[in-house]
């Protein structure tokens, strides 16, 4: 009885620290959402409580136009890219582990080296290539450069190394084709890794700015980050509206994260161990 209810100072300290950290990470979100319900003058003067301007901000946003288009484009691009990218990168990562080849580690090394090149350095040559291929203003133009990322290949390669190779051999003996081994055995077992990869890929596609900015120039192709950015260009800024757009743009990420949270954590742990 006594031992159970005694307050341990270390424990109090630990919890105080955790409360502080949770506050620090949650407060900006709270402020963002509450600002979406205030008008600009109040936000500038530092109002933190929710206000009554949500509908005004919403109406301003709707009358600015294109929020639906931008949201739909971003969602479509991110979803399609996530599926394609997961499929191709995991196939590659799997292949790097399962098949024997004396060059494969060197190839992986070269791929890893390519991660050192900053994306801004390849922007102009890439734009030149894609423009000559006629892929400006197409979804393919947006997706091709990030359809196979070294980071994901590496992640799936690490995950595949923990995969029991005996199962693959047993399946081969039973006469299952290589592609079916991948699809029916590897993919279901590696669900946690796929969840983690899905979140990472979706997030980078959802947030990407520079590449869609130059490759998707047609106003009908506008994506949400570029759309949200457009409200930051004025001599007078409407912070209420900006916060509403930003709030809207975090919703899909939140949904995805909460849906996959459990396997995301497992996936990250799995790829590290």
């Amino acid at each position: 009885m006594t031992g159970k209810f005694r307050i341990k100072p270390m424990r109090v300290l630990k919890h105080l620290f955790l409360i502080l950290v949770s506050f620090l990470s949650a407060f900006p979100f709270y402020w963002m959402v509450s600002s979406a319900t205030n008008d600009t003058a109040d936000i500038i003067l530092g109002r933190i409580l929710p206000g009554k301007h949500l509908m005004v901000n919403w109406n301003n946003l709707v009358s600015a136009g294109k929020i639906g288009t931008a949201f739909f484009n971003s969602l479509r691009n991110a979803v399609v890219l996530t599926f394609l990218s997961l499929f191709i990168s995991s196939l590659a990562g799997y292949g790097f582990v399962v098949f024997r080849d004396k060059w494969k580690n060197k190839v992986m090394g070269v791929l890893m080296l390519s991660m050192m090149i900053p994306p801004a350095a390849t922007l102009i040559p890439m734009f030149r290539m894609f423009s000559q291929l006629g892929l400006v203003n197409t979804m393919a133009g947006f997706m091709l450069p990030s359809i196979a990322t070294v980071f994901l290949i590496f992640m799936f390669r690490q995950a595949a190394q923990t995969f029991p190779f005996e199962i693959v051999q047993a399946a081969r003996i039973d006469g299952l084709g290589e592609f079916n081994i991948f699809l029916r055995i590897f993919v279901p077992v590696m669900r946690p890794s796929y969840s983690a990869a899905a979140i990472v890929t979706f997030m980078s596609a959802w947030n990407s700015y520079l590449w869609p900015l130059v490759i998707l120039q047609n106003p009908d192709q506008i994506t949400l980050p570029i759309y949200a950015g457009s409200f930051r260009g004025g001599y007078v800024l409407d912070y209420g509206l900006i916060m509403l757009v930003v709030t809207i743009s975090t919703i899909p990420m939140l949904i995805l994260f909460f849906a996959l949270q459990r396997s995301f954590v497992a996936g990250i742990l799995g790829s590290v161990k």
Partner: protein
Amino acid sequence: MKKLFALLLATVMLLSAASALAQTKLTVWCWDPAFNIYAMEEAKKVYAQINPDVEIEVIETLSGDCETRQTTALSSGQTDTLPDIVLMQDNSGRRFLDTFPGAYFPMDGLVDYDNFATYKIDKFTSGGKRYAVPFDNGVAATFVRTDYLEAAGFTLADLTDITWDRFIEIGLKVKEATGNYMLVTQAGYADFVSMMTQSADFWFFDDEGHPNINTNPAVRAMVETIVKLHDSGIVKEAVDWSEYIASFNNGSAGSTIQGCWIIGSIVLAKDQAGKWGVTNIPRLDIESGTNYSSQGGSSWVVPASSKNPEAAVDFLSKTFGASVEFYQTILQSSGAIATYLPAADGPAYSEPHPFFNGQKVFEDLMNYSSKVPLVKYGVYNYEARDEIVNAIEAIFNGASIDTALNDAQSAIEFIME
């Protein structure tokens, strides 16, 4: 069959060529729906009366994004994605014109440049050719709470045509009387670095484009003045843009010295209506010092890759470059102040402004606009400004002015090599 096909093809081509002749389409990139885009839409209406065969499509693009897209397209040589007209920040003009020679369409002889403030035209002049139709005005002014001045026993006239030393004297009294800061600016004083230097008819570069910082009398006077302002305690140094705006909207600072486009943010504080006044800026106490300068503003350029550059220039010159009436409309609805000098004669410019206690603010600003010293901007304006901001920071922390300015001079020389 083959002949029929050829005939059909020829007909189709002829028809499409004919319709292309009838309908010229111009695309425009610019930002800010309340200001630039609005002005462009109004210009479209004006031009529809003059030449109904031209269709104009405005595509909202952030100023930084316009620059990224232009840099990408021009560097890779794939210019067919560029529009027919782009709005460009005045400070970026030289950079694009000099980095990509031949990428923009010269407008000499097509635009009547005599009607524009000269300091604007020069920002888009390269190799003796002029490449832009100037648009919004960045003329600088002192925007001040007259009730704060009165509390300390001063009027707007006491703040007019003065030196910075006098401004600090008045500021100290205002702070004593009201408990509020006299002035607000963003920490680092970056806006003041360029505004003050230009007000004394100097720039960070000499006429040949070489960095002119450590032996430049205006830069030295500017740095000394900023140090005095910093030490005086009358300046609120805001950490970011929203705190800057908040400081005058909530009354904790009694004035701001800025490009005239700041009016849009000042009038947000509706409870302060009638309590504001506008006058010219303080001058540096050197021989060439004036009470006039500029900060910000932008101009319209036409990429040379445009399929119809002449049509684009014709549109710009007959609206932004010729219509007093057009400027009346956009002033009333958006507060966009012209650099087209004849616009000042229109009735909207002489209207008393209720927020500024009935002062004829726009007339005054147009008057200042014609007196802004003409300085020659360089390619590395922002870099030079940032080096001087670093130097000032070093001086705040105890470095001597000589050492700090010598360091800034060598830093910018290094960047330009």
